Protein backbone atom coordinates (compact mmCIF):
# COMPACT_ATOMS: atom_id res chain seq x y z
CA UNK A 1 0.00 0.00 0.00
CA UNK A 2 1.17 3.53 -0.73
CA UNK A 3 0.40 4.64 2.76
CA UNK A 4 -1.70 5.93 5.54
CA UNK A 5 -2.39 9.63 5.36
CA UNK A 6 -2.45 9.92 9.14
CA UNK A 7 1.04 11.28 9.69
CA UNK A 8 1.41 13.74 6.86
CA UNK A 9 -1.41 16.22 7.43
CA UNK A 10 -2.52 15.51 3.89
CA UNK A 11 0.55 17.02 2.22
CA UNK A 12 2.58 13.86 1.57
CA UNK A 13 3.09 12.67 -1.99
CA UNK A 14 1.53 9.51 -3.35
CA UNK A 15 2.73 8.51 -6.79
CA UNK A 16 0.92 5.53 -8.26
CA UNK A 17 2.42 3.66 -11.21
CA UNK A 18 0.47 1.65 -13.78
CA UNK A 19 1.97 -0.48 -16.54
CA UNK A 20 0.61 -1.82 -19.80
CA UNK A 21 1.97 -5.38 -19.39
CA UNK A 22 0.70 -6.23 -22.88
CA UNK A 23 1.75 -9.06 -25.13
CA UNK A 24 4.59 -7.40 -27.02
CA UNK A 25 8.13 -6.73 -25.87
CA UNK A 26 7.09 -3.15 -25.12
CA UNK A 27 4.44 -4.36 -22.66
CA UNK A 28 7.07 -6.54 -21.01
CA UNK A 29 9.36 -3.53 -20.72
CA UNK A 30 6.63 -1.31 -19.26
CA UNK A 31 5.88 -3.93 -16.63
CA UNK A 32 9.52 -4.37 -15.64
CA UNK A 33 10.15 -0.62 -15.58
CA UNK A 34 7.18 -0.21 -13.22
CA UNK A 35 8.73 -2.77 -10.88
CA UNK A 36 12.11 -1.02 -11.01
CA UNK A 37 10.51 2.36 -10.26
CA UNK A 38 8.57 0.86 -7.38
CA UNK A 39 11.73 -0.77 -6.04
CA UNK A 40 13.49 2.61 -6.18
CA UNK A 41 10.60 4.27 -4.30
CA UNK A 42 9.62 6.52 -7.20
CA UNK A 43 6.05 5.42 -6.53
CA UNK A 44 3.86 2.46 -5.74
CA UNK A 45 2.98 -0.02 -8.43
CA UNK A 46 -0.71 -0.74 -8.77
CA UNK A 47 -3.10 -2.41 -11.16
CA UNK A 48 -4.00 -0.96 -14.56
CA UNK A 49 -6.34 -3.86 -15.31
CA UNK A 50 -8.37 -2.99 -12.21
CA UNK A 51 -8.67 0.57 -13.47
CA UNK A 52 -9.93 -0.75 -16.77
CA UNK A 53 -12.44 -2.89 -14.91
CA UNK A 54 -13.74 0.22 -13.08
CA UNK A 55 -13.06 -1.22 -9.63
CA UNK A 56 -14.04 1.53 -7.23
CA UNK A 57 -11.11 1.32 -4.81
CA UNK A 58 -8.55 1.65 -7.57
CA UNK A 59 -10.47 4.50 -9.22
CA UNK A 60 -10.78 6.42 -5.97
CA UNK A 61 -7.11 5.82 -5.13
CA UNK A 62 -6.15 7.24 -8.53
CA UNK A 63 -8.38 10.26 -7.99
CA UNK A 64 -6.64 11.00 -4.68
CA UNK A 65 -3.04 10.32 -5.81
CA UNK A 66 -0.51 13.11 -6.15
CA UNK A 67 0.54 11.69 -9.53
CA UNK A 68 -0.62 8.81 -11.67
CA UNK A 69 2.26 7.55 -13.78
CA UNK A 70 1.06 5.53 -16.76
CA UNK A 71 3.63 3.38 -18.58
CA UNK A 72 2.24 2.45 -21.97
CA UNK A 73 4.11 0.01 -24.15
CA UNK A 74 3.28 1.60 -27.48
CA UNK A 75 1.41 4.49 -29.03
CA UNK A 76 -1.92 2.63 -28.89
CA UNK A 77 -1.88 4.06 -25.36
CA UNK A 78 -4.42 1.79 -23.67
CA UNK A 79 -3.34 2.97 -20.21
CA UNK A 80 -3.80 6.60 -21.11
CA UNK A 81 -7.22 5.86 -22.60
CA UNK A 82 -8.37 4.29 -19.34
CA UNK A 83 -7.45 7.44 -17.45
CA UNK A 84 -9.02 9.70 -20.07
CA UNK A 85 -12.22 7.67 -19.88
CA UNK A 86 -12.37 8.29 -16.15
CA UNK A 87 -11.31 11.94 -16.32
CA UNK A 88 -8.39 11.35 -13.99
CA UNK A 89 -5.13 13.31 -14.45
CA UNK A 90 -2.06 11.26 -15.37
CA UNK A 91 1.42 11.50 -16.81
CA UNK A 92 2.14 9.09 -19.65
CA UNK A 93 5.42 7.51 -20.72
CA UNK A 94 5.50 5.37 -23.85
CA UNK A 95 8.20 2.72 -24.13
CA UNK A 96 8.65 3.22 -27.86
CA UNK A 97 9.75 6.80 -27.08
CA UNK A 98 12.85 5.32 -25.46
CA UNK A 99 14.50 3.91 -28.59
CA UNK A 100 12.57 0.65 -28.26
CA UNK A 101 11.00 -0.89 -31.35
CA UNK A 102 7.81 -2.85 -30.85
CA UNK A 103 8.26 -6.52 -31.65
CA UNK A 104 11.99 -6.20 -32.20
CA UNK A 105 14.10 -4.73 -29.41
CA UNK A 106 15.21 -7.40 -26.89
CA UNK A 107 14.25 -6.48 -23.31
CA UNK A 108 17.37 -6.76 -21.18
CA UNK A 109 18.12 -5.87 -17.60
CA UNK A 110 20.28 -2.98 -18.72
CA UNK A 111 17.48 -1.58 -20.88
CA UNK A 112 14.97 -1.85 -18.03
CA UNK A 113 17.28 0.02 -15.65
CA UNK A 114 18.13 2.68 -18.26
CA UNK A 115 14.49 3.42 -19.08
CA UNK A 116 13.53 3.42 -15.40
CA UNK A 117 16.27 5.91 -14.63
CA UNK A 118 15.19 8.24 -17.43
CA UNK A 119 11.55 8.11 -16.37
CA UNK A 120 12.41 8.57 -12.70
CA UNK A 121 14.08 11.85 -13.56
CA UNK A 122 10.97 13.08 -15.39
CA UNK A 123 8.23 12.05 -12.99
CA UNK A 124 8.12 15.35 -11.11
CA UNK A 125 8.79 17.60 -14.10
Amino acid at each position, binding site marked *: *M*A*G*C*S*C*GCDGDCE*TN*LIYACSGAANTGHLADQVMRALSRDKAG*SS*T*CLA*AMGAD*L*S*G*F*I*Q*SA*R*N*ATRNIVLDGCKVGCGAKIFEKNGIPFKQFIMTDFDVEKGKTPITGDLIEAVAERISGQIKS
Partner: protein
Amino acid sequence: MKVQILGMGCPKCKLLEEHAREAVAELGIQAEIEKVMDTDAIMDMGVMMTPALAIDGDVKSVGKVLTKDQVIEYLKGGK
Protein backbone atom coordinates in the same frame (compact mmCIF):
# COMPACT_ATOMS: atom_id res chain seq x y z
CA MET B 1 -26.40 -1.59 4.39
CA LYS B 2 -22.77 -2.24 5.21
CA VAL B 3 -20.35 0.60 5.90
CA GLN B 4 -16.65 -0.27 5.95
CA ILE B 5 -13.89 1.89 7.41
CA LEU B 6 -10.56 0.86 5.92
CA GLY B 7 -7.41 1.67 7.85
CA MET B 8 -4.92 0.27 10.29
CA GLY B 9 -6.27 2.07 13.31
CA CYS B 10 -4.57 5.46 13.07
CA PRO B 11 -6.21 8.58 14.58
CA LYS B 12 -7.63 9.62 11.19
CA CYS B 13 -9.15 6.19 10.69
CA LYS B 14 -10.78 6.41 14.11
CA LEU B 15 -12.09 9.87 13.31
CA LEU B 16 -13.62 8.66 10.06
CA GLU B 17 -15.27 5.79 11.92
CA GLU B 18 -16.66 8.27 14.45
CA HIS B 19 -18.09 10.43 11.66
CA ALA B 20 -19.59 7.38 9.98
CA ARG B 21 -21.28 6.29 13.21
CA GLU B 22 -22.65 9.82 13.71
CA ALA B 23 -23.93 9.87 10.14
CA VAL B 24 -25.69 6.53 10.51
CA ALA B 25 -27.23 7.66 13.81
CA GLU B 26 -28.40 10.97 12.36
CA LEU B 27 -30.07 9.29 9.40
CA GLY B 28 -31.60 6.66 11.69
CA ILE B 29 -30.82 3.86 9.26
CA GLN B 30 -29.88 0.27 9.89
CA ALA B 31 -26.25 -0.14 8.92
CA GLU B 32 -23.49 -2.48 9.95
CA ILE B 33 -20.22 -0.61 10.50
CA GLU B 34 -17.17 -2.77 9.95
CA LYS B 35 -13.53 -1.84 10.50
CA VAL B 36 -11.18 -3.37 7.94
CA MET B 37 -7.67 -3.29 9.40
CA ASP B 38 -5.97 -6.10 7.51
CA THR B 39 -3.53 -4.71 4.94
CA ASP B 40 -4.17 -7.49 2.43
CA ALA B 41 -7.92 -6.98 2.63
CA ILE B 42 -7.47 -3.23 2.17
CA MET B 43 -5.19 -3.80 -0.83
CA ASP B 44 -7.64 -6.29 -2.31
CA MET B 45 -10.19 -3.50 -2.41
CA GLY B 46 -7.72 -1.38 -4.38
CA VAL B 47 -7.26 1.14 -1.61
CA MET B 48 -3.76 2.59 -1.77
CA MET B 49 -4.20 5.29 0.88
CA THR B 50 -6.11 5.18 4.13
CA PRO B 51 -8.45 6.00 5.71
CA ALA B 52 -11.06 4.93 3.20
CA LEU B 53 -14.82 4.49 3.25
CA ALA B 54 -16.81 1.84 1.41
CA ILE B 55 -20.57 1.38 1.29
CA ASP B 56 -21.91 -2.03 0.32
CA GLY B 57 -18.51 -2.92 -1.11
CA ASP B 58 -18.21 0.20 -3.25
CA VAL B 59 -15.25 2.40 -2.27
CA LYS B 60 -16.46 5.98 -2.02
CA SER B 61 -13.46 7.80 -0.61
CA VAL B 62 -9.73 7.16 -0.22
CA GLY B 63 -7.11 8.97 1.87
CA LYS B 64 -9.52 11.46 3.41
CA VAL B 65 -11.32 11.99 6.69
CA LEU B 66 -14.81 12.71 5.46
CA THR B 67 -16.99 14.92 7.62
CA LYS B 68 -20.22 13.55 9.05
CA ASP B 69 -22.16 15.51 6.43
CA GLN B 70 -20.05 14.07 3.59
CA VAL B 71 -20.68 10.55 4.88
CA ILE B 72 -24.39 11.35 5.03
CA GLU B 73 -24.32 12.36 1.36
CA TYR B 74 -22.74 9.04 0.44
CA LEU B 75 -25.21 7.12 2.59
CA LYS B 76 -28.04 8.88 0.78
CA GLY B 77 -26.55 7.68 -2.48
CA GLY B 78 -25.13 11.01 -3.51
CA LYS B 79 -21.91 11.76 -5.46
